[in-house]
C-alpha cells in the first residue's frame, strides 16, 4: 500500500507583502517568522498536512517539515503545556486551537502555568496561542465564542485581536517575538472577507502590542471596539455621519494590556463614548473600559458611557436567534443617535 496521499502539489511560498486578505497576511507573518527564526514552530490539531481547519498554516509543512509543524492529538491541555515546556527550552511555539471554543480544555495550563511563570520564577514564556473566534456564521454555541474576557482577569496573558490584514500580519509577528504569552484571536468572519483585502508592505514590519489605532477620526462621539466589530462600528459611523453625527472609531487591537491613553484621549476629544463588543455584555471587557473612563476621564464626559454587546446568552445557532443575540449595525446606530442627542 503506497503511503502517498492525494495531495500532490506543494504549497507555494506566500508573497512578501502585496495585496492580501486577512488570512493571507496572517500566514505571511507566520511564514516569515519561521524563516527568520529557526526556534519558531507551529503546533496544534490538523495544522500540518491539512494546513489547519481554516488553512491558516497551509503549506508550512512543505516548507519547514514535520519537525516544525507538529500535529497533535486532540489534547488542548497538552498543546498548551508542551508549548510552555518547549518555550522554556528556548523555542517559540505558535499553538493553534481549531476553534477558540476549544481553548477551554487548555484553560488550566494557560491561566495557571503559562500566565504565572515569569512572576513566580522569572521564566518568561515566548508563546503564542491563536485560533478562530467569534460568531455570526451560524456555527452554534460551541464554535462561536469570544473568549477575551475569560482571560482578561488573569494577569500574565497578553490578548490581541486584529481587524485588518495589515494588523493581522504585524500583530502575529509582534506576538511571536514577544517574550511573554500572547493570546491571538482571529475573528473567523474576517479571514477571507473581500473588504479586508489590502496592500500590505513588503518590509518586515510589526504592530506593537498594547497600541490601539484610530480607525476613523470624529468629533461627536467615540466608539471603542476591536475585532470584527470594528467593521460594524465603521458602517454605523458612516450612517451616523449622514445624520450629522461625527463618529470616531478606536480599534483597540490589544485587549490586554489595554491602551488606556488612546481611550482617554479620544474621550477628551468627543466626550461621549459607546463601547462595542461581540461577547456577552455582563462581565465583558466593556465594563473594564467603562470603569477606566469613569476613573480617569470622568470630568470630560457629557453623557453616560453606553455599552452595545451581545445579550447574556450562549450564541444560538438559528439565524434569527443569532441576529438577536449579536450586536447589529442598527443597534450601534440607534445607540449612537441617542448618545449624540443626550
Amino acid at each position, binding site marked *: 500500500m503506497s503511503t502517498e496521499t492525494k495531495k500532490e502539489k506543494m504549497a507555494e511560498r506566500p508573497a512578501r507583502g502585496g495585496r492580501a486578505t486577512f488570512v493571507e497576511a496572517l500566514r505571511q507573518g507566520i511564514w516569515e517568522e519561521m524563516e527568520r527564526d529557526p526556534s519558531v514552530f507551529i503546533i496544534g490539531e490538523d495544522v500540518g498536512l491539512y494546513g489547519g481547519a481554516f488553512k491558516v498554516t497551509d503549506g508550512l509543512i512543505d516548507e519547514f517539515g514535520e519537525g516544525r509543524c507538529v*500535529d497533535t492529538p486532540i489534547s488542548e491541555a497538552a498543546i498548551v503545556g508542551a508549548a510552555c515546556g518547549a518555550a522554556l527550552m528556548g523555542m517559540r511555539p505558535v499553538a493553534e486551537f481549531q476553534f477558540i471554543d476549544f481553548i477551554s480544555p487548555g484553560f488550566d495550563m494557560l491561566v495557571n502555568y503559562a500566565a504565572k511563570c515569569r512572576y513566580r520564577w522569572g521564566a518568561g514564556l515566548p508563546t503564542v496561542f491563536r485560533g478562530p473566534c467569534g460568531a455570526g456564521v451560524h456555527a452554534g454555541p460551541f464554535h462561536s465564542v469570544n473568549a477575551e474576557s475569560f482571560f482578561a482577569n488573569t494577569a500574565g496573558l497578553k490578548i490581541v485581536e486584529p481587524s485588518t490584514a495589515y494588523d493581522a500580519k504585524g500583530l502575529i509577528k509582534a506576538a511571536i517575538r514577544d517574550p511573554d504569552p500572547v493570546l491571538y484571536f482571529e475573528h473567523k468572519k474576517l479571514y477571507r472577507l473581500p473588504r479586508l483585502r489590502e496592500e500590505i508592505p513588503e518590509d518586515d514590519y510589526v504592530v506593537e502590542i498594547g497600541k490601539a489605532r484610530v480607525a476613523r477620526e470624529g468629533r461627536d462621539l467615540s466608539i471603542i471596539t476591536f475585532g470584527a466589530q470594528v467593521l460594524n462600528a465603521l458602517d454605523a459611523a458612516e450612517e451616523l455621519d449622514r445624520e450629522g453625527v461625527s463618529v470616531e472609531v478606536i480599534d483597540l487591537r490589544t485587549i490586554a494590556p489595554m491602551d488606556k491613553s488612546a481611550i482617554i484621549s479620544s474621550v477628551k476629544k468627543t466626550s461621549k463614548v459607546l463601547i462595542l463588543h461581540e461577547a456577552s455584555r455582563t462581565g465583558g471587557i466593556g465594563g473594564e473600559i467603562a470603569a477606566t473612563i469613569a476613573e480617569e476621564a470622568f470630568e470630560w464626559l457629557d453623557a453616560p458611557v453606553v455599552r452595545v454587546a451581545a445579550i447574556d*446568552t450562549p450564541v*444560538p*445557532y438559528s439565524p434569527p436567534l443569532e441576529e438577536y443575540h449579536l450586536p447589529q449595525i442598527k443597534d450601534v446606530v440607534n445607540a449612537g443617535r441617542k448618545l449624540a442627542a443626550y
Partner: protein
Amino acid sequence: MATKTETKRKNAGKNKAARDGDGNGNRRGANNGNLIAEKSVEAAITTSIDDAVDEKPQATAAAAAQAIEEVATASVNADGEMICQLETSLTRDQMLELYRYLKLTRLVEERLVNLYRQTKVVGGVFRSLGQEATAVGTAYALQQGDFIAPLIRDLGAVLVKGIRARDIFAQYMAKAWGPSGGRDLNIHFGDMTKGFIGPISHLGDMIPVMTGIALGARMQGKNLVAVAYIGDGGMSTGAFHEGLNFAAVQRLPLIIIAEHNWYAYSTPTSKQTAVKNLADKAAGYGIPGHIVDGNDVVACYETMKRVVEFARGGGGAAIIEAKTYRRKGHAEHDDQRYLPAGELEEWERKDPLDRFERHLISQKAATREEMDKIVADVEREIDEDVAWAESSPMPEPKQAAYNVFDNTIVPPALRPPVLGGE
C-alpha cells in the same frame, strides 16, 4: 533479541490481558471469563490485526481493512463476498428492523446533504457513511431505560433510541419546531424519556457526564447502562480519561464505544495514540476491552449485547472498539487530501449496508422485494419528515433571550434599552 514469533506471542498475551482487563490482578476473573473464552470473531480479528501490523511500527487503516477481510472470509456468501457474523440470537424480524435503521440512517444523511446543497441546512453536515453499522448495531442491543451519549457520527444510534428523523431535519434546518428550538445544531439536544443525552462539540466531555448518569442511576436503584460513543481522536482528551477512570474505580456500568475510523479530521490514529488498538487502553483502566468489526452490524450487536449483560450484571465499565472507516471527509467541505491513495476504495468494498444486504439474502432472512419495500417505506417516512420540518417556521428572534435560566426566577436576557429609552 526476540524472534518475530516470540514478539508476536508476547503481543498476543498482552492483548489478551488488555481484553481481560487483567492488568491489575484477577478481580474480574469470574465475570469476565465467559466474555473472553468465546471463540468469537472479535478475538480472531484482534489476533489477525496484530499479525497485520506487527511488521509495521504503526497500524494503518489499510492493514485493518485487510485484517478484517481475512477474518471475515469465515463468513462469505456463495460468490465469496463478505457477509456478517453467522452466530446470532437475532430473529428474522429483528434483522429486518436492523436493516431498516441502517437504511434510515444513510438515507436521512443523504437527504441532509441535499438540503445542505439547497442551503436549507444552515450549519455543516457530518456523515457517518461507512460507519452506520457500529452505531445501529450497538444501540440496538440496549433496553429502553438505557442511556446513550452519541457523537456526530452516531445518528444511527439516535434513531434506534427512538428519536424521529423529523426532529433531526428540523434541528439541521435551525427551525422553531426542532427540539432545541433553533438554539443548537444537528444532534445537540436530548430526550431523557428516550435515554438520549445529546453531545456538545467538546470531545470527551460526555464521558464524565455518562459516568454521572450511571452514578445517579445506581443511587436511585436503577439497573441501567450508560453508553458513550467516542472517536479515536476524542479518546486523547483529558475529559475522556478522567470520566472513564472514575467510572472504572466506581465499577459503574459505563460502556465506551470507541469508533476507530482511522482519522480525527485529518489526523491519522497513529498520531493520536501509540497503542495498536483503542481497546488496548482498557488495560490502563483495569477494565475489559473488546474489538469488533464495526462494519458488521450483527457482530456489533452481539458483542454489545454481551458487554451490556456484563455491565448490567455489576461487572463495571468496558470499552468496545469498533474498527470501521470514515468514508467522507470530516464534514462536507473537507477535500480529504491527507488520505493515502487507494484507501477509500478499499473501504468502499466493505460497505456495511451492502454487506448486510448480502447477508440477509444469503441467510434467506430477507428477499430483495422485502428489502425494497423497507427502503420504500423509509423513503416515504423521510419525505413526510422533511415536509414537516420545512413547514416549521424559523424561531422568533426574541426567543434567543429565553431559557438561560428558569425564567420564573430570572427574567429573560432581552436586549437592554439604551440610556433608559426603548
